């Protein structure tokens, strides 16, 4: 089983990036979450291969896409933050501690610009969403 999980709030500008990518890919089992909650661990429990797409704030130019092999590397906590008490980076690290990660976990981060409620997605992020969705559709 392989699953693509898009995380994001569709009402908060560039924060919708992961949500949007997941909405366009049909070649994977797709889940869309508004927050990277603890439910992620249950969501991927039957999957071997998992991709997460989420907006990030790392200081890179807006629209930059990074690919992290989360089985090999830790997620930079500050980049994948959340207004919730348990963001996606914390959930991945908790799952790692409890040996509940899938066999393969790739995390794509799309650098966000504006994430305020009611704002539109910036052009650079929209372009990144288009390109990443096409790439993952064929993956």
């Amino acid at each position, binding site marked *: 089983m392989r699953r693509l999980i898009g995380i994001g709030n569709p009402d908060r500008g560039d924060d919708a990036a992961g949500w949007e990518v997941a909405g366009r890919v049909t070649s994977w089992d797709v889940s869309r*979450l*508004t*927050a990277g*909650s*603890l*439910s992620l*661990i*249950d969501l991927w429990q039957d999957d071997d291969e998992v991709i997460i797409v989420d907006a990030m704030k790392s200081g890179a130019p807006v629209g930059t896409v990074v690919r992290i092999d989360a089985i090999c590397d830790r997620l930079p906590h500050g980049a994948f933050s959340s*207004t*919730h*008490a*348990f963001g996606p980076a*914390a959930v991945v*690290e*908790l799952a790692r*501690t*409890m040996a509940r990660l899938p066999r393969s976990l790739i995390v794509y981060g799309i650098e966000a610009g504006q994430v*305020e*409620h009611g704002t539109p997605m910036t052009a650079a992020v929209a372009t990144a969403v288009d390109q990443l969705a096409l790439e993952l559709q064929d993956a």
Partner: protein
Amino acid sequence: MPSDRREIAVDYLARVEGEGAMYLKIDGDEVTDLQFNIFEPPRFYEAFLRGRYFGEAPDITARICGICPVAYQTSAVNAMENAAGMFIGGQIRELRRLLYFGEWIESHTLHVYMLHAPDFLRYPSAIEMAADLPDVVGNALRLKKLGNTIMTVVGGREIHPINVRVGGFYRAPTKPELQALVEELEWALETAVATVSLVAGFDFPDFDREHEFVALHHPDEYAITDGRIVSSSGLDIDPTEWPDHFEETHVEWSNALHANIKGGGGYYVGPMARFALNGEQLSPSALAAASSVGLVPGVTNPFKSIVVRAVEIVHACETSLKIIEAYEPPDPPFLTVEPRSATGHGASEAPRGLLYHRYEIDESEIIVDAQIVPPTSQNQRSIEEDLRKYVTGRTHLDDETLQWQLEQAIRNYDPCISCATHFLDLTVDRTDPQR
């Protein structure tokens, strides 16, 4: 005496929902300035409810919070039904209670195990705690999943449920769908009882403060979906009277309005208040679990709120089993509600405490005014009063220890800052370089 003055500042409080900060200025043994600072931007839900059809309120307000959407939905439907002069009982009300218990199990488990327990066990987070206590954290994940499953079965999905409507539900779950929850609920009840013993064994700071507790009260049950608003000083009012007895005020350091008792002051809502005012109405296993660890209604040490939350998980599991045992699907699953040119008030007990809604609806069934008062807004003043008293007598502590304990004191309230903005950084400011 500048050497006696210091500041402690936490710019971003961890392990709370949303974005907030705390600033503390200490002069000698005195706290000269203290701010529980909610800086998450205001979200204007009350403003954009205006002009919407009354039936949209439960779905719109559910989006306020990913942890306690059922609370928003329940207070909203209560208010709309109140505006129509209706009270809905029977199996529809029982389904609402079951859905709400799912939210209590999910939210309380997250806070007890993943957010608050690390404070007592001196772990920086649940991740490090999981390395030493994998079975404990594994149980927490399983309990939380059960809460989410109940919300999915009754509410349509685990976050922001879609099956709730004014008057009832769009679809009533079948008996077999609820029966399928029983085995896991029986496991959860046993695990929840063990959780009470686990958390009651933590070391609690020696701290007591007389609080004005406020909660819903129901004559026949531990109130959750509805009831009268009562307090430890004798207030006993219908939710329609909320505006006569409470008020919201703005303070410059918070994007959340502070709620006060008119002519009184701050008050405390949440599990501690419910236990103090309604504790004898808990389910038999919850009462026994509380009694076994010496927890009796009237406990005033807010650090023991973690034990009360654990007791409420027991209550939620046991009562859910009873509801499922007696369940008959309501047919139809909703009653028609037509509020016109009326004002409705609704209240329910969110995991964090009393949640009050008021809506004014015109003759076209359009919302013309809305007021939403979340529990964290109501607890802000009580949180600040706890912090102020806690520091007094502990100014000898170094900044790191003091900051840790103060953050723990804030987490006693399980604040949901996203809800209240309608968030947290901690600054303790003292100029004494020795500390």
